């Protein structure tokens, strides 16, 4: 997969776009909670994590996932 952006150049706006596309929601805030506010299902979370791993070459362990609650948490984890 081509990497347009390295994880050091990553901005939260890109993560917001990723979440927006996965969940089909037009407006996604930086602090929005993925499950309780944006209605993400387990399968959405799997897709988001997998997309972040592929795109930014990071590895997110299964036991880290419960700590990724918000769009910002996902951004910070993607940045490593």
């Amino acid at each position, binding site marked *: 997969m081509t990497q347009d952006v390295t994880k050091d150049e990553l901005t939260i706006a890109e993560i917001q776009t990723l979440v927006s596309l996965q969940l089909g929601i037009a407006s996604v805030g930086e602090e929005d909670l993925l499950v*309780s506010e944006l*209605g993400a299902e387990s*399968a959405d979370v*799997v*897709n988001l994590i997998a997309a972040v791993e592929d795109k930014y070459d990071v590895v997110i*362990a*299964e036991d880290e*996932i419960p700590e990724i609650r918000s769009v910002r948490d996902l951004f910070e984890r993607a940045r490593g």
Partner: protein
Amino acid sequence: MMRRLDAFESALALSDSVAPLNVVAVLRLAKGPPPDVLEQALNRLQHRHPLLRARITQGVDGHVFEPSDPLGIAVRRASRDRSDQWVDEAEAELNQRFDAAAGPLMRGVYVGSGDGPCEVLLTFHHGIMDAASAMHLCRELLVASEEGGAAQVLELLPEQPAAETFFPASYQGWRRGARLAVFALRQVRGEIRDRWRVRGRWHPPPPEPCRGRILSFQLSEAETSGLTRCARRHRVTLHSVFDAAMLLTVARHRYGGQSLPLRHLVFANLRPYLDPPVSDENLGAYFAMLRFSTAVHPQRELWELAAEINREVYTASKRGEKFAFSLTSAMMMRNILRLGSQRMAATALSYTGVAKLDRDSPFPVVGLHAFVSSFRLGPEYTAQVRLFAGRLWWDILYLDSEMEPAEAEQLADEIRKLLSVEAAVS
């Protein structure tokens, strides 16, 4: 009166009225607190959590939570003659019904002889506890049992309304009726289609008396991380992979390799989807049971079946069916009990994700199990799975009047091998 049970809690109470419906959590400790300290801690926690002081009575309009009389959570002491003594104790706990009308709806067992390793079994009526709150209570119990724990002031929590109160706006008022009508039509259509395609090939309920038996296995850390990577690469949840492995194994061994639709139960944690979300510290049954019917060809590839299950669960969840299943569950349970001739499903699987218990506490947790009772109209093979200490822990329940221990172990071994092979490929 504390409050009426909602539809899903009523379904659990109805099920418990014909056979025990208990949750048994097993904490395996390298060194545990003395049993009297444990009992004191449990009784302090009972004051903190309203549902630990509850009983269930039958009111005019349905089941009602009322204050328990007497109070006090008993901790039975059992000797630890063998390291797997806890298995016998857990089976006894699963099969021993609570006197729900008297309460309380929780009890404990201490399996040990003092200073060394021990097991602490916490048994709950399922109507007051889901997996998230059981895990939270285990954490609270270990902290409250620490030296000095008795001096800590525990905040008393208020009584919580039922899950239905917090359902989203689309499942409140007149909109609820419209959504349930669409849901019911879809269910009836599926039921007719299944009955036609199956035509008596599903297994009938086993004879009474039947008793729940248990067994467990774990995947290694390497297998667990391999499987996790593989599931992510296939863009499916771990739950879907486990469900697929179970269904394939049951189809191959118990249905003679026939190709037919099999029903399977899936459990959804409602807590984060409620409005407002309900924290794990508020004990209660804030979950839903969803039923699916999936065509299983015994030679089908694991990931293909997992992807199909993933799609089915995702579509139903996005349609909000977890709320519809919850609202119609008491009616479904009444029908199942009235007919008495149809199993609820072939399999049931609950994957509760990461279990966070501090391994560095004064009471290091070296093992963590959880089981839920079943009965003759329940699933043929039930599994509770969680990720603990980097490994996947599978806890299985089957009924002794339909399956010999050797067959149950063979099925478990097949599931483990199926998952291990995929983990190795990754």
